[in-house]
């Protein structure tokens, strides 16, 4: 067995250990490298900046705990920004297993920013049907969500004053980890009800949403943890995403090194065999 062959056959648990360390060490000893802001993320930020006070901002938290590390920081940064701009924040989720997380997230940020439930923000909870919920909200918001998460009648919430359907929403951002997510909000929502739409998504989804970004169907895109870190930088309030960027850097370089080594060994092996 040649050297290359032996190297390629090493126990994969050694690599597991290496990746574990590459993640753990930067988390324990952060460096804090600067983060450049991309135009995709700026699109969402600028739009929220341009909204007048008390505009309605709808945030749909369309993910579950499996994508929490990527999308939770995005949601926190967006909510902080919206609360700081004194927008009326309405939140909801289309993913049943994300309900508890969304509730906790909204309550936590609202408490931190000193906002009051009902007048400054609301959490509508979850409703089944995905696309059906979106269309129904576009037709009549109170039909899709007759009551909010805690069971209060949505018609009595002052935060929804003057809002009858999605048409009255100033800005809507869907943080999607799959289906239903950003695409569904366009097809079944914005296509007909004409509100301004922004997107946030996991890294896996991000490349697939670029055609919608290019055609202006969404006016901005926050992609993965990196997108969240950019947003945290934009609002000047660093959180978990910025803290994770060093570890992200380390693991990416480790993976690149592994890919290069893999190919070096592979080609030397091929040469040996002729």
């Amino acid at each position, binding site marked *: 067995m040649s050297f290359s062959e032996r190297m390629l056959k090493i126990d994969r648990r050694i690599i597991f250990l290496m990746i574990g360390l590459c993640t753990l060490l930067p988390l324990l000893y952060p460096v804090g490298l600067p983060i450049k802001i991309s135009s995709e993320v700026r699109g969402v930020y600028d739009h929220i900046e341009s909204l007048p006070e008390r505009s309605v901002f709808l945030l749909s938290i369309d993910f579950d705990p499996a994508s929490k590390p990527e999308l939770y920081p995005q949601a926190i940064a967006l909510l902080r920004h919206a609360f700081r701009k004194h927008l009326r924040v309405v939140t909801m989720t289309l993913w049943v297993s994300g309900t508890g997380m969304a509730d906790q997230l909204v309550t936590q940020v609202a408490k931190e920013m000193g906002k009051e439930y009902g007048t400054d923000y609301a959490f509508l909870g979850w409703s089944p049907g995905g696309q059906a919920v979106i269309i129904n909200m576009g037709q009549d918001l109170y039909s899709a969500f007759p009551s909010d998460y805690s069971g209060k009648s949505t018609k009595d919430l002052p935060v929804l004053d003057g809002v009858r359907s999605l048409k009255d929403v100033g800005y809507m951002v869907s943080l999607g980890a799959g289906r239903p997510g950003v695409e569904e909000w366009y097809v079944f929502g914005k*296509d*007909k009800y004409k509100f301004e739409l922004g997107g946030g998504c996991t890294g*896996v*989804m991000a490349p*697939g949403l670029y055609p919608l970004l290019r055609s202006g169907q969404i006016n901005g895109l926050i992609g993965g943890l990196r997108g969240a870190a950019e947003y945290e930088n934009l609002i000047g309030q660093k959180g978990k995403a910025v803290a994770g960027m060093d570890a992200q850097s380390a693991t990416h370089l480790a993976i690149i090194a592994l890919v290069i080594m893999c190919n070096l060994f592979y080609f030397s092996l091929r040469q040996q065999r002729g």
Partner: protein
Amino acid sequence: MERKPSSRGRTLRSSKGHERREGEGVRSRLRRFSIGFGWFFLQLIVCASNLVPLDTLAQTSISAPHDVRVFDTPSDGGGSLTVQWAPSSWDGPDARYQVLAGDAAVTDPAALTIIAEFPANSKYVKDAKTAWWTRNVDKTWHQVLVRSAKGFEVKDGTSYAVAVATVQGDQRVFSPVLVASPSPDWFNWNQLNNLIIALSFGGLVFYSISYAKRHEIFLRRIPGLDAVDEAIGRATELGKPILYLTGAHDLHDPSTIAAAVILGKVAKRAALYETELLVPHREPITMAVCQEITKQAYLEAGKPDLFKEDANFFITADQFSYTAAVDGIMLRKKPAANFFMGAYFAESLLLTETGASTGAIQIAGTDSDHQLPFFVTTCDYTLIGEELYAASAYLSKEPVQIGTLLGQDIGKVVVLSAIGIGIVLATVGAVTGEQWPQLFLDLFRDLK
């Protein structure tokens, strides 16, 4: 100083005139759409001759807005009136327009409520996304919609008086008061192109299906399929089994159906070469169907005695337990060929990596585009997206599948030619400033 409006008689006449125009709307729009280009070209020349140059920003004294029209907004759900008027020579940021509305009985425009006020060089027809087949005036005209707002409600079936005023400094000049009533419509003419595209594509698909039933249709060779034979051949040489996975979804997913069809072909080859076949499943119903398919394949190969019931077996529905079990099979039995067809999620990498480490030839086919990068790098051949369906159509020879494929191909040709012609016309339009390329480009715009 305010000037009083002209006679009420003229108002009524013009509103009646609009009713007539609305009644004719359906037929005339259809005719316009079908006669299309020639007619519109003529119209354009006529309009162009009326064009007033916008850049002559003169400080001449203002006059009442002319050619004002008020009518029910077409193609809407009701509750709205459209007001249009011709541009003037003094349209500029200094002058302003006011749109006023109120009860139909009001004859004095000064008594109407101000609905909108804006600089005279804004709110044009071209700002609203409309197509030429619904536009009744030139793009340079002004257009404002009168809708319900705070303190003013617009109800269907009620008549309203509407006027437009020009304001400059403390000068205000009114147009005549016009009367119209809003009503809901039964068709959104802006979406006519959408309807035509949807219907003609649907028709095309059914036509090509029926065509495929009557004729032989050529489908191109798919390289991944050729590799299937090669892989099975190698497994036979080495005397090792073949592993075939049908993906994570059940038979409701077209990709699983395609995987089952391709399994038929693989099983037939395996039977001919007398090579062992292993098909671990995640879904009991898919397993039962695949068992039938495998049995049939062995029959067709003339080797029914070699068929084993337990070639298809159920492991578990849980994603990672299933993956671990399949990885275990790969490590123990060292199959010489691994097939991954159908829908896959995060488990794809765990499967193909183990397969690659055992040195098997790996062939994948999936429409799960998020997993395709991993299949491409770890497998020897990958059927990408629609290639999976094409492979299945190619093997099953079913006219419905082949016909659909043909229909979609023609659809793609249409899209490609639209893009090609569109880009040429758009460039010509951009360079020459001509309007006529828009006649074609509007056909492929999403309008509401």
